[in-house]
């Protein structure tokens, strides 16, 4: 059902059809020189129909501005998605990334014409090396999952060089789904380490699973329950003794940056999400950037291109027999590196440390204020995100999903829900350091109100939320059962 001519929204709430439904009336949103229609040298007749809308520039502007109004964003309010680090995205970063000397250069230009770009990459590598304590860094991976892929490939290559390719990667049950998917993509079998009742790795189970066929452990630290693994050093030591490597998923690096270096707790390889810790915008689903840092032992296996500094000039090394090879076309997500560098330079060593401290403080403040209303599955303080569940509400028929949808009704983006999988009805809340105390207090007040409403027996209202958002709850079953993945003229007619 599309929008009728009479109902394109009320007040500032908009309804918007697809651009394809605006008709094909011969309009065009660009003015280009008229082609001369000289004979073609393509070897083919010209294509006569593509299937695109025909609209002018004002129509395009209005369409996408109207669509934008249907989105929640970090710039409009708290976005406490656990493990996603939705922090403020400074516009200075955007501005510098658009300088012609960065946005307008081609990756295959002669080295003499791109020294500034290589300097950016080299400088970001140095910052990440210092912050992680791991001396060698590549910015080639396109996103966190791609960084995981690079890291596990590097580990595979290292075992290969030692003469024995191992077959297994150990992953805790609380891990992000990308971890087992990555290990499988790299040709490994995965084995799942259980968590203890405290929400951390069961170290005894881990030790019993360790043997000379284990290539690596992939561990997120702080873990996805929002806890720093207290026995991480011991884990690293026994892992190394068994000849395996420690891969750290750096999705939660915001709790540590400037304060704790993963190398100091035994990490051999880690990835960073520049789109989390270092504030490059999420953009509704990317682009990300997932650099990895490795120990000196693993450095030879890093992907190409590698950047080296010789006297005053930077060089790109594209061939290297030890390397795992090329991960991606050209030189990684360079534009994201520019943005991250602006962020790092703005904060400096002192500011980054404050980032971690404020992020941890904010999460603990929320935890301390909601302890009485919500079930807290694990004891003690949390790191930069806190974990609650719906255990106290579920009996009254209010689930994590209802709590999330009620937050939407009250103008707040929900936390991460039903993750980690090790906790039933999980709500993982990561406020980040860029929230004011007032913003946290507002969130706390809404969460308390939801708990009170549940006790008061108003479950039905909560189950009905949201009602004021651009859409109410969606029929996701229909979407999957009968997939409609593109617009066709027929759909509109029906």
């Amino acid at each position, binding site marked *: 059902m599309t929008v009728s001519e009479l109902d394109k929204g009320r007040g500032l709430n908009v309804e918007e059809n697809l651009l394809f439904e605006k008709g094909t009336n011969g309009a065009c949103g660009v003015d280009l020189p008229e082609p*001369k229609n000289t004979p073609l040298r393509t070897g083919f007749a010209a294509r006569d129909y593509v299937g695109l809308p025909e609209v002018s520039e004002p129509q395009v502007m209005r369409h996408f501005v109207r669509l934008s*109004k249907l989105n929640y964003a970090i710039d409009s309010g708290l976005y406490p998605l656990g493990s996603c680090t939705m922090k403020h995205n400074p516009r200075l970063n955007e501005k510098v990334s658009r300088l012609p000397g960065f*946005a307008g250069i081609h990756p295959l230009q002669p080295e003499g014409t791109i020294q500034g770009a290589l300097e950016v990459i080299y400088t970001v590598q140095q910052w990440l090396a210092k912050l992680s304590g791991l001396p060698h860094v590549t910015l080639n991976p396109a996103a966190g999952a791609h960084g995981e892929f690079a890291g596990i490939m590097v580990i595979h290559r290292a075992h290969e060089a030692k003469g024995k390719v191992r077959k297994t990667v150990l992953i805790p049950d609380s891990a992000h789904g990308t971890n087992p998917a*990555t290990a499988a993509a790299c040709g490994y079998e995965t084995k799942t380490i259980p968590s203890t009742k405290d929400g951390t790795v069961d170290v005894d189970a881990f030790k019993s699973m360790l043997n000379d066929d284990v290539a690596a452990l992939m561990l997120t630290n702080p873990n996805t329950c929002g806890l720093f693994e207290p026995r991480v050093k011991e884990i690293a030591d026994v892992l190394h003794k068994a000849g395996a490597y420690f891969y750290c998923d750096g999705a939660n690096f915001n709790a540590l940056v400037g304060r704790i270096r993963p190398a100091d707790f035994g990490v051999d390889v880690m990835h960073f999400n520049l789109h989390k810790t270092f504030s490059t915008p999420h*953009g509704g*689903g990317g682009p990300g950037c997932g650099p990895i840092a490795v120990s000196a032992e693993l450095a030879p296996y890093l992907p190409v291109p590698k950047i080296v500094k010789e006297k005053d000039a930077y060089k790109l090394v594209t061939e290297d027999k030890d390397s795992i090879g090329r991960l991606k076309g050209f030189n990684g997500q360079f534009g994201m590196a520019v943005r991250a560098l602006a962020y790092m330079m703005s904060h400096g*060593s002192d500011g980054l440390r404050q980032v971690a401290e404020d992020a941890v403080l904010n999460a603990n403040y929320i935890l301390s204020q909601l302890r009485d209303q919500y079930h807290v599955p694990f004891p003690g*303080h949390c790191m930069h995100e806190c974990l609650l569940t719906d255990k106290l509400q579920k009996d009254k028929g209010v689930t994590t999903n209802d709590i999330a949808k009620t937050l939407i009704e009250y103008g707040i983006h929900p936390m991460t829900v039903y993750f980690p999988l090790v906790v039933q009805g999980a709500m993982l809340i990561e406020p980040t350091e860029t929230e004011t105390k007032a913003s946290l207090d507002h969130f706390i007040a809404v969460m308390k109100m939801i708990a009170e409403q549940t006790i008061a027996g108003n479950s039905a209202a909560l189950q009905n939320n949201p009602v004021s958002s651009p859409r109410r709850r969606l029929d996701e079953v229909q979407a999957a059962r009968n997939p409609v*993945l593109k617009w066709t003229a027929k759909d509109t007619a029906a």
Partner: protein
Amino acid sequence: MRYLPLTPRDRTEMLKSIGVKAVDDLYVSVPKEAKLSALIDLPAHQGEIEVEKALTLMAQKNHPAANGPFFLGAGCYNHHIPATVDHLIQRSEFLTSYTPYQPEISQGTLTAIFEFQTIIANLTGMDIANASMYDGATATAEAALMAKRVTGRANIHIHGALHPQYREVIETYIRNYSDVSVKTSAPDANAACVIVQTPDFHGEPQALAALRKQCDESGALLVVVVNEILSLGLLPAPVEADIVAGEAQSIGVPMSFGGPHLGFFACRKQYLRQMPGRLCGETVDKDGRRSFVLTLSTREQHIRREKATSNICTNQGLFALAFTIHMSLLGEIGFKKLARLNHERACLLADRLSKVKNIKLPNKSFFNEFVVELPVSAAQTVKELAAKGIIAGYPLAGNKLLVAATEMTSEADIEVLAGALEKLSATARTKEVA
């Protein structure tokens, strides 16, 4: 620090509410040896003025395309981006939102993804397209892996001139599968797919009918790679393909030293459940209103974990939006016109270069890029011309130079390149005579 809103007083109050004396008390589970007492040896924080100055200085050490004649392509093209595109993608609501996991408050992003999928499907002549991949090279590697899953066969056959970096990425992606190898022969009973790029790395558009027949006979999938997506405004849609993967940077995405770019992935609908990446589908909400939502996620890592079709999570969302906006501006008329203009500029370039003595143009056909055979080393030529402010193209082996023209290439630019090559050619002849 301008990005950190907590005041010292806030911090004191909050610590008190939590019941601890200092932030360090919250880091109790961190082993002592892992806690740094001093600051890391990196520069201290700086104001906006200082940071902007420092980065501007770095940018000024580069030579952007706008500074002079520019003929480099090879999988990344210098096209114009309308001002509207960059304005719209900087709207907070698009720029600073997450992957649309909460569809009730993400219909803007979801609708745009649905439009993106529709445009990619229409351009490629495929039934379905996903919400984007990192870039053309990784999209191609994912296509190879998907063909392996669909057919249960091992080998990846590459036909003709595939972008060398795409091949390298395929080799990285399969390096841990001992049973898989990359071949250049015709497909046989163990072939998962044939990969063919059109226009190929040398700019030559490819006929696909014969390859389709080979694939039908051997049972392999046909993977067509397009890394100049604008070519689909003039060349026929690759409807013979099972999968079309490639790079859409040409529309709406700056070159930005090679990334972020925009990979795309389209295929026939019978392979839907083996596709990598995110998909957005149509449905209704509780009030029966048309709505969009991420769907079929049972293929994906967050549900299927080690059995997922790919480990991809974050993709190139914002640039899929940029592409969709730019394609909307161009529309049916503008897109085809822009493709034709590119071809005509390339024809002008070819005509002018063919008048330079001792230069040969071996291409039988081309879209906006072709090979030039110089009388001298191409690598040396590129270096020498760069010193004169001309970015001449991509040096292939020996004397071969790959040059591209776009709507940004002026007749004056072409004249400058031709003049410079004439001089080089003359110098080379003088040397030969001597």
